[in-house]
């Protein structure tokens, strides 16, 4: 298992009910796991525990068998792709070069080899021609791809993505999803949060449906994401319809 989470309990404030009330997850090599759930169900808190931004009360997070890794060690095992906000004026290549940091000796600047690998990562997501463009002057989809490239430059086996398709148009959503599927086909393990159940179907992923800090259902997308589960999860009527052999979730009426 590349990632194994056992009995994770986390409180934002001492004395208050836990935001995560016992989470178990497992992710193998080349697998995609979609984390679904309504706002406030604990998806973001779980990601923050995984990336070491938040400490948890009980339970354990094992990445490639290791727990309690230092931040540098963790950076060699797990790469995090945040939502593409930010208004940095740095060139895309400089943004992607940051991904080489855990591989660089302390106090060193990126070497020619680091620059080559960063360029390669940009090419991998198909935007190498934008290497010299400022991050805040490219489109939202390009920014998201650049952040994926930064994570690829880290050369980890595990990718954790926080709603990578949020605020992207349909075309860019498809491009980002296609990139995720290709990476998994190359053996990368991907944990991705999303508010769109059809993305789990498109990716052919396993899903974990979270609600109230617990995992309500887990398994293959086609088995877990039925109309009943989705309606319960989001507390609104949801239908699952099939088109061209792929199911999709939709809200039938308001």
């Amino acid at each position: 298992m590349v990632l194994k989470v056992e009995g994770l309990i986390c409180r934002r404030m001492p004395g208050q009910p836990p935001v995560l009330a016992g989470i178990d997850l497992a992710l193998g090599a080349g697998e995609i796991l979609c984390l679904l759930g309504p706002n406030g169900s604990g998806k973001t808190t779980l990601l923050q525990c995984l990336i070491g931004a938040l400490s948890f009360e009980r339970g354990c997070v094992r990445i490639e068998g290791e727990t309690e890794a230092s931040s540098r060690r963790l950076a060699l095992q797990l790469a995090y792709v945040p939502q593409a906000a930010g208004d940095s004026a740095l060139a895309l290549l400089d943004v992607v070069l940051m991904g080489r940091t855990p591989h660089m000796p302390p106090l060193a600047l990126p070497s020619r080899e680091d620059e080559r690998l960063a360029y390669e990562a940009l090419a991998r997501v198909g935007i190498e021609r934008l290497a010299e463009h400022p991050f805040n002057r490219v489109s939202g989809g390009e920014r998201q791809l650049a952040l994926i490239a930064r994570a690829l430059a880290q050369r980890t086996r595990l990718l954790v993505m926080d709603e990578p398709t949020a605020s992207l148009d349909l075309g860019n959503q498809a491009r980002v999803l296609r990139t995720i599927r290709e990476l998994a086909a190359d053996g990368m393990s991907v944990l991705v949060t999303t508010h769109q159940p059809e993305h789990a179907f498109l990716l052919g992923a396993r899903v974990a449906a979270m609600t109230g800090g617990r995992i309500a259902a887990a398994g293959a997308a086609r088995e877990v994401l039925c109309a009943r589960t989705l309606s319960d999860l989001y507390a609104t009527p949801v239908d699952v319809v099939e088109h061209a052999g792929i199911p999709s979730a939709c809200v039938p009426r308001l």
Partner: protein
Amino acid sequence: MRTDGIGTADAARAGGKGRGGRRRGGVEWLLPALFAVAVVSMGFGHYPLSPAAVLDVLWSALVGAPSAQPPAVENVVLAVRLPRVLAAMLVGASLAAAGAAYQTLFRNPLASPAILGVSAGAGFGAALAMLLYGSALAVQGAAFAGGLCAVGAAMFVAGRLGNGSALVLVLAGLVVSALFQALTSALKYVADPTDTLPAIVFWLLGSLGRVGMSDLAWAAPFALLGLSVLFLLRWPTQVLEAGDDEARTLGIPVGALRIVLIVAATLMTAAAVSISGIVGWVGLLVPHLARLLVGPAYGTLLPASALLGAGYLLLVDGLCRSAFAAELPLGIVTAVLGAPVFVVILAKARRQWS
């Protein structure tokens, strides 16, 4: 949010520089330029000298040979202007580099070295020492200690309030600054209006007029130590621009790095202010000037800011001592020049920020 497709992005947009034209140029030429400005500005003053005469005196002093210049010229260059020019460069470089570090660290283009209270604390320390009729050395020491105390207090308050966020730290700095400014006002209120009060006011306006070699010898080690630390840590500092959580997942120990950067920037700013008095605007303005010249990447921005800051303060100090019959306080001139220059920079940089 822009929604044009990934495939339709115009490669020529945003200047589309090729690989050969990377913005990595531009720091090396600043060094000889700074030297030239230093030599020329040593000619400024009530006793104008040509650059050739200045160079002759400096070279002779360096190799230990007698120079062709009259002893009065030698005295003006070596005893009066050399320490002053070195101090201007040291103070300018320290303030500008600390400003560049803070703007990146706090991800705020309006951050200046004074943001955590170092200037307010130094002002209070200096005023207190003057009120107690301390020596010039005591005033310097008290300014330095006051600056460190103020930043220490801001960090303590921020630590107590909690979550280690940069915003809480900035707010704590604001509170501590206000407190020390009020205390300084109280000292001014009780100071003897015939001698102590003018001395305090003049110190707070900033000046390099009384800087000697001994002052430099005391301040330079701190300033150079701080500069070296900032320079060595320029890559991790640049990664901070990705955001705290993101930098952590890239292997940067964010909390420790922030403390080291603040301590380094505080040491150098306190040392600078202790010999020059309060000199505003340099730390805010010069990094923006540098950004226009070499681009936003901190790795080049930091050395460019230090060199430009040194040159900027040299020119401003030259103006202070030669524009009028009486010498102008440095802090007034940096502010009067700084405000309009900042507006021009804002107008030029608007495209980058919007």
